[in-house]
């Protein structure tokens, strides 16, 4: 078990004939991801990367391959529509599916529309946009759906959820430093309006028998971390280790991610750490300490 994406999940790549899509499709295949097709309108019928069929639409692709997930490497002006096309295709064809959008720089109001569209299709889950993707490492290979470096991961029992890209890799490396692997790692992205949130991930990790502990990496801005901490306090029995980036960020300034702005005095790192502490989440104040804090939490829970 893992969450949402099994090791052998069948995956489509939207935008596979583009530079980014092609490069990452190759990296995903190299890792062992079961890429079953690509989608580029107007290029249906082509075969790329030796044996990957290209389809004109996501619906054609899902119907031909019975794909479980689709990952989007489409430029920002077209990405929201790509999300909606995938949601429609999964909903129409099999009633469920996971859509992962890697694209950075999608207009916020496009995402408002796309998220509302996805939410009307209850069996469809959106991860991202502006995120590294989701990975479920296997004994050998596994399902890497996104742009994360596959080789730093190993199959294990720690679930990771994060708003940030490279900071997620840092968290992965920290689990490895104490000889722990990962069940599933989810990058939910740093945009103000996105699909899957912290609470969705915590609920899924809580229900997943493979996951024994959770690492949660937040960022300043919004109140998603505070809401998640409160929810976890009431609903999550597994140990959680938390870190929040942006303690030194000045208010009103955007720190790279569009969502990372402290505004109106809300969403500071101090608020979020305090909410974590109040919910019994084990805090790392420095990402280099995540491994040690996790080890202590595992020992406390009798898991080491």
């Amino acid at each position, binding site marked *: 078990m893992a969450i949402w994406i099994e090791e052998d999940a069948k995956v489509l790549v939207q935008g596979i004939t583009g530079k980014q899509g092609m490069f990452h499709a190759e*990296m995903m295949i190299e890792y062992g991801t079961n890429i079953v097709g690509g989608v580029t309108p107007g290029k249906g019928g082509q075969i790329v990367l030796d044996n990957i069929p290209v389809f004109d639409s996501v619906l054609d692709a899902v119907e031909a391959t019975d794909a479980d997930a689709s990952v989007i490497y489409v430029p920002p002006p077209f990405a929201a529509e790509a999300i909606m096309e995938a949601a429609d295709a999964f909903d129409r064809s099999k009633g469920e599916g996971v859509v992962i959008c890697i694209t950075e720089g999608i207009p916020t109001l496009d995402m408002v529309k796309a998220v*509302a569209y996805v939410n009307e299709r209850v069996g469809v889950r959106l991860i991202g946009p502006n995120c590294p993707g989701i990975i479920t490492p296997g004994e050998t290979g596994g399902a890497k759906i996104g742009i994360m470096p596959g080789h730093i991961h190993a199959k294990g029992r720690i679930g990771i959820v994060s708003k940030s890209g490279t900071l997620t890799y840092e968290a992965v*490396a920290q689990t490895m430093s104490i000889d722990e692997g990962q069940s599933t790692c989810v990058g939910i992205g*740093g945009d103000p309006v996105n699909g899957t949130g912290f609470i969705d991930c915590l609920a899924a990790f809580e229900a997943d028998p493979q996951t024994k502990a959770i690492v949660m990496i937040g*960022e300043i801005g919004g109140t998603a971390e505070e809401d998640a901490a409160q929810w976890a306090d009431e609903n999550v029995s597994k140990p959680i280790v938390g870190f929040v980036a942006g*303690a030194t960020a000045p208010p009103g300034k*955007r720190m*790279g991610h569009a*969502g990372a*702005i402290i505004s109106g005095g809300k969403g500071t790192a101090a608020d979020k750490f305090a909410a974590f502490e109040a919910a019994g989440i084990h805090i790392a104040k420095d990402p280099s300490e995540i491994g040690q804090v996790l080890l202590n939490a595992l020992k406390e829970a009798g898991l080491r």
Partner: protein
Amino acid sequence: MGAMFKEDLSVAGSARDMNIHEYQGKALFAKHGISVQQGVHATSVEEALAGWDTLGSSIVAVKCQIHAGGRGKGTLIDPQSREMVMQGGVHLARSREDVESQASNMLGNVLVTKQTGEEGKLVQNLYIEAGCSIAHEYYLALLVDREEKSVLIMASTEGGMDIEEVAENTPELLHKIWVDPNAGLLGFQIGDLARKLGLSKMASRSFAKMLRAMYGLFVSKDCAMVEINPLVRTENDEIIALDAKVSFDENAFFRHPDVFNEMRDLAEEEETEIKAEQAGLSYVKLDGEIGCLVNGAGLAMATMDVIKLYGGDPANFLDVGGGADEEAVKTAFGIILDDPNVKGIMVNIFGGIMRCDIIARGIIAATESLSLEVPLVVRLSGTNFQEGRNILSGSGLDIHSVETLAEGAQKIVQLIGGGV
């Protein structure tokens, strides 16, 4: 949740949502059918006086145009002597002489408000606006609520006040509606808001027309935020936008080249931040001494945090992004070293798609071409990190290579002689 007050009110957008001036916002309002008072944009005292002559109003408002709120309660100071010239960045003028003295006190001086920071902003633009008979002042804002994932419209009878205080002390006076992106702004929602504001039938009609136009503008131009404080009701029950704070989502510029080309005022932005943006880097200047060069926004923030944790002070936020090459690393070093406060540099790279050996070569090229004189600590991790570290140690340059972020932060703090 929903009912909670969650988003920012007084910060008009962020560093990279594009802000525009009030006079530009009002021109946009007028174009979209939102009632505003007649006004004239001026960049000199002569133009301000010509504005007075054109408007033919017995009373006008002379308003400093800067990209920050709190202008009315701000202070104008002389940029050289830093001495106070005049209290308040918005004044009423009842004569040509008033306009002349106020305009000359404003132009070329610096306006300091609670949103500008101590350094303030140079006033280069004025707006001369006809006065109007105000029956009541309201507050109105449109923004994207990230928790509800929809456009939030907020209105209050407590216009002209510090709205954050209203939200804090009398939240029941701040009324909200969320717009369903599929259904759009609905009549019953507008009616509900108008009733909560206690508007008469006639004023409600004017309010509805204004709000529909405002939502249309927000969506069609990809605004990040529109804030009007005050929105006024005249004695004739007409609703007029007496203020216009508008910012745009930079991600949507591809479909609004007009907004970007015609309304961006580069003089309001940090020079180095513009230079970084052009190189595809994300940079925010801070007040400390340790320059930071990192890949990824979250890791960049975490690097700053850890430097602070070990007693140092970060000089900047700098994310070189996922696809940075040698050239981008060199540009990044240049930008960091443009800041005279920088006494040392910390590089923190977690190689994913980006390979550490390429970064290491970029670092060497940059230190050689810029003849780097401040201490440099480099932490490389992830893809090809060993090769990267070997390249650095074999370069013969004075580069301190470390394995973890914590180790790096401690090292750089120690090298510049600070810390605890």
